[in-house]
């Protein structure tokens, strides 16, 4: 159990460094989530309109999703070099699938009858989208964002391989220097923050689902 004591000693002694990696990690995930929403939601809406595009896009995003992260990071280095940008791109690629898929499925499942009611009242296409389709689909979209966020948070641990920092740096250093206390400190940080994030986002998600469940 000595190793745990070492880990905690490390966390306390190097708290500034630990906090800095944590901030980097969070910023990476927040930006990734931002871009995932920015790209994923409109993409999901667009492909929900045409079946052929839907198969093509969901298929390609699905394939990207199955590429191992180290392979993807390795692939990005010759194209973009190292640093935050390629890391961000990798995270966005992984985060896209749940958001695109949920948005697309959600929008496709808005009952034709409901859409017809809105059109019959005189809604134009934009009004249909913003007053009916998106609000009705919001819980499903949000569930996709939750998945994307928690997943990119956990994947961001690998960002260190491409020089983008984050909490993976602690683990990496621990490994390189055979410093088991430091290694364990990194693992503890990653596990605790991932669980915490999952809890917090899950709590918000539950509130969203509850608030919107009136809709059914």
């Amino acid at each position, binding site marked *: 159990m000595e190793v745990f004591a070492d880990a905690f000693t490390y966390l306390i002694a190097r708290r500034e460094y630990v906090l800095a990696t944590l901030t980097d990690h969070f910023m990476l995930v927040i930006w990734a989530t931002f871009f995932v929403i920015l790209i994923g939601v409109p993409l999901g809406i667009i492909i929900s309109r045409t079946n052929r595009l839907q198969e093509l896009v969901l298929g390609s995003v699905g394939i990207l999703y199955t590429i191992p992260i180290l392979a993807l990071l390795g692939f990005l280095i010759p194209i973009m070099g190292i640093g935050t940008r390629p890391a961000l791109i990798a995270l966005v690629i992984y985060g896209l699938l749940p958001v695109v898929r949920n948005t697309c499925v959600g929008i496709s499942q808005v009952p034709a009858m409901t859409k017809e009611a809105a*059109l019959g*009242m*005189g*809604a134009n296409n934009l009004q249909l989208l913003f007053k009916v389709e998106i609000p*009705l689909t919001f819980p499903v979209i949000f569930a996709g964002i939750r998945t994307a966020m928690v997943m990119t948070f956990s994947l961001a641990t690998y960002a260190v391989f491409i020089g983008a920092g984050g909490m993976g740096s602690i683990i990496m250093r621990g490994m390189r220097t055979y410093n088991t206390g430091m290694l364990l400190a990194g693992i503890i940080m990653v596990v605790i923050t991932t669980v915490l994030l999952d809890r917090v986002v899950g709590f918000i998600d539950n509130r969203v689902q509850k608030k*919107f469940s009136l*809709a*059914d």
Partner: protein
Amino acid sequence: MTREISVELQDVVKVYDTTKVVDGVNLSIEKGEIFVLIGPSGCGKTTTLKMINQLIPHTSGNILVNGMNVKELDAVELRRSIGYVIQYIGLLPHLTIEENITFVLQLIRRPKKEQKKRAHELIETVGLPASYLKRHPRELSGGQQQRIGVARALAGDPEILLMDEPFGAVDPLTREQLQNELLRLQETIQKTIVFVTHDIQEAFKVGNRIGIMRNGKMASVGNAMELVKNEDEFVRSFVGQGAIFDALDNIPVKRVMENDIPNVREGEPFKLKTAMNGWENIIVLDQNGAGVGYVSLEDVGPDGVIPAGAVRPLLPGCSPDLSIKKAVEQMLYGGRTWLPVASPENVFEGIVTFQACAGLLSREAG
């Protein structure tokens, strides 16, 4: 007498793939009437209705709304100007009742205050408490949701209402109640209503005129009595056995009521009018105008004095909204050939005779 035409269909055709689901329909719907479209499932009623507000574009022919060709109008604007009550209600589940009612007003960006005011007016119009405005559709019963569907269609105060089986999803008792409410509402709002149903009873009840559709074609158009007397085999089979009684059950007494009946106030002498219109009896009214009895012209003394013993009791007065079938029933049970008609305040309005009821058939068709 030329009536104003609100909606006109000229040789309207709708083709899906290669099948004509609406096949050369011609129709003139008059301003202020309830026109019922009826026919078996899949005959093209909904398609016809949706072509009027261009939710479905027609393949050929012309559709005129208030004299303007819908093809030349902006479809979105057209729909905003026409009320639409969708089959299966179709309230927006994520919006409150208030937001549902004012949906059209939101689309055209009316001020919030006006929306709120209109929502309160309309929920009262359809007979629900204002507290329901804050609820969501799923917290309302089917019948209540139907009422909201009607309120929503009225929000923009459209001249024309399209109603697609609006009372289809509720139990028979509620349906009857909703039909009565619609008729009462229509007396004040006087909209042009195109009403789709597959229920012939409902058609007789709410329709000023009824169009029967078959395989995308208009098989027959007319009022209830004209349809009952139609010789066409399809129309006969659709309208059904005993349809005449169904129709009579839905035509109100006021349609055949005679209201120029000689009458006298109790205690006052009766002055013989020159125009008795062949009436042999005089109705005696109390000071409030309620019928108390009738007296034969022969029994009226000189100077118009009415001997107290000569006044014979009336049958209980019926409402002008009572169906002719029920009125005839009351005559048969009461052993008379006529009934007094009284307003809800029990003021004598006229009488309805067995003869007039029987004459309805020939007269309506004439």
